[in-house]
């Protein structure tokens, strides 16, 4: 047990340990950056999410030029035109330079943080030029913009999902461990039931039993709920196990003797002790939700067009022609990879920093 005499708060101890790991810091940094980008997607994305330009399908990323005729003229792009429709090849029109403008007024109004209406977007170019930073998809939609909008779905699906499943998991698992007897028996049978049906079958069956006659934003909620429904069971069992051992601890008995109620004991005295485990477990579990959405999209039952998600963008790229000649379509896959990696790094760092042995013992 940790007995280190220390005048610092637990938070400070944690931070001291956590910042020792550069990968974990990097993971946290990446995540902060990406979540920030998701929040300000409207501002950062030059195009609204569903906007199409059917004449510019599968356009490769537009290079941004800084010099013209050897002279610095600031960022600009060259206009391009379609050469071969069957192969989606384009050529740039020499001489037609269009400057990249900053803080441009977009066509569509949006609200910053859902509050302040504005049309200002970070950058854009004047028509007829296109600035496709990450290329375009078959409808001529801007992959970069869709990536930003899609991150709202893909990054939040894990957080919300994990929040729901952890809430249910800890509550049910905690009560089950603390109360025991009949309640415990029922809960454990239910969790066993959920865990003994292979997860993907259960997801598919659940997904099929929901009304699918819903707009894509509500479909998002349904998918989160389904994923969370699968996730809580194993967690409840682990929490129950921890509570079983904790409830006989002296301080719990003391609280009970002082007349504290069941819920109070559970929430004030027992569950906080499982916190460090829960935080690490949650961090590591988030990628499962993100990848789960990818799988659902692959099976055609995830987030539906025209709503963007990284899962359905990657599914769109799940094509050998993309592998061969349209690599920019794989960018969403790269971002999925980065986020999952970042969560794993973060989880690893958290586990190390929250590990009591590490605080006292250090390296052997």
């Amino acid at each position, binding site marked *: 047990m940790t007995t280190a005499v220390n005048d610092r708060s637990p938070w400070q101890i944690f931070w001291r340990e956590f910042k020792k790991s550069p990968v974990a810091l990097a993971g946290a940094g990446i995540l902060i950056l990406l979540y920030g980008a998701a929040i300000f997607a409207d501002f950062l994305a030059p195009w609204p999410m569903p906007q199409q330009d059917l004449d510019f399908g599968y356009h490769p990323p537009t290079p941004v030029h800084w010099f013209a005729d050897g002279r610095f003229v600031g960022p600009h792009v060259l206009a391009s035109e379609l050469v071969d429709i069957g192969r989606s090849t384009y050529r740039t029109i020499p001489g037609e330079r269009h400057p990249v403008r900053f803080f441009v007024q977009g066509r569509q109004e949006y609200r910053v943080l859902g509050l302040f209406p504005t049309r200002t977007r970070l950058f854009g170019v004047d028509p007829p030029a296109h600035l496709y930073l990450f290329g375009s998809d078959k409808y001529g939609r801007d992959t970069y913009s869709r990536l930003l909008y899609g991150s709202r779905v893909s990054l939040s699906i894990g957080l919300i999902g994990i929040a729901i499943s952890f809430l249910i998991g800890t509550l049910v698992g905690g009560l089950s461990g603390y109360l025991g007897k009949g309640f415990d028996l029922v809960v454990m049978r239910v969790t066993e039931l959920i865990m003994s049906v*292979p*997860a993907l079958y259960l997801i598919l069956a659940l997904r099929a039993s929901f009304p699918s006659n819903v707009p894509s934003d509500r479909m998002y909620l349904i998918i989160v709920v389904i994923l969370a429904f699968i996730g809580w069971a194993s967690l409840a069992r682990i929490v129950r196990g921890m509570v079983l051992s904790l409830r006989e601890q002296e301080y719990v008995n003391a609280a009970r003797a002082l007349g504290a109620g069941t819920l109070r004991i559970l929430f004030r005295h027992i569950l906080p002790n499982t916190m460090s485990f829960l935080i690490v477990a949650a961090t590591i579990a988030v990628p499962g939700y993100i990848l789960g959405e*990818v*799988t659902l999209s692959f099976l055609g039952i995830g987030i539906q067009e025209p709503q963007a998600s990284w899962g359905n963008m990657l599914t769109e790229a799940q094509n050998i022609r993309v592998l061969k000649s349209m690599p920019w379509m794989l960018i969403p896959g790269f971002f999925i990879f980065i986020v999952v990696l970042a969560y794993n790094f973060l989880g690893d760092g958290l586990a190390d920093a929250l590990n009591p042995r590490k605080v006292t013992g250090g390296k052997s």
Partner: protein
Amino acid sequence: MRTYLLRRVLSLVPLLLGVTFLAFLLIYLAPGDFLSQMAENPMISAETIERMRSNFGLDRPWYVQYGLWLKNVFFHLDFGESFAFRQPVFQVIAPRLGNTLILALAAAVVAWGLAIPLGILSAVKQYKWQDKAASFFAFLGLSIPEIFFALLMMYMAAKTGWFPVGGMRSIDHDEMQWGTQLLDILHHLVLPALVLGTVPMAARMRQMRANLLDVLRLDYVTTARAKGLDEDVVVWKHAVRNAINPLITLFGFTLATLLSGSFIVEIVMGWPGLGSLTLEALLKQDLYLVMGSVVIAATMLVLGNLIADVLLVLADPRIKYD
């Protein structure tokens, strides 16, 4: 031990009952039924479809259908017939189950075969470049979406010709000698097993590393070191054995999850397993085929866990069940 086993096996019964009920209910809640597909064909009249519906018994309330199904299972061990194949479901499932078992076992071998040595290396060389490389490798494996990994492997196979593009047997398989047949299947098995085994491999590797690090900090290891034992002996004779134990429990569990989690790989890589069959049945609402698959999958999952417990007893004599 024997009574414990008996009790565990018996507890399967109510569990499976619950699973089948859940599955039946969910399939019922999903709109449409097996015959809905046919309704779209302009050459088939509504009357024909109604007639077929009553032939299949799909016009009765779901609880009646479920009751009948249960009755047949209990009294005749008859799990019903697949609507699509018009054969008893286990006749449809059996060959697929074998293939899935082969794939799951191979994936488990890949996972464990790589995870344990890499985990040990990682722990022994903690914070050295070997550890970092192995950890990065593991994170890589955890982070790449399985679907995409599978497609990449298929693409690689087609471009290099080193491996067959999906499938389980060559077209000439039947004309081959016994030994060549085995090699043929192994050749087809490499890529799917690699793709399927990567995630558990990465996870087990991290676990092995953590376990071994924990053990290496324990008193008896310190004592052994203090006695001047060779570091190799300390690690290999004492620490590794103890660090592997917790992983043994996971073997059964992983095998079970591999069995049920293999259908993406089966579809993309053309492995003729149970997963792709079940997915098709689920989408087409081939009711009893789904039920049969779910029963099998759930049994596998539970048995996998049971095997894990038994393995643990065999590996660690301190643990006893009564």
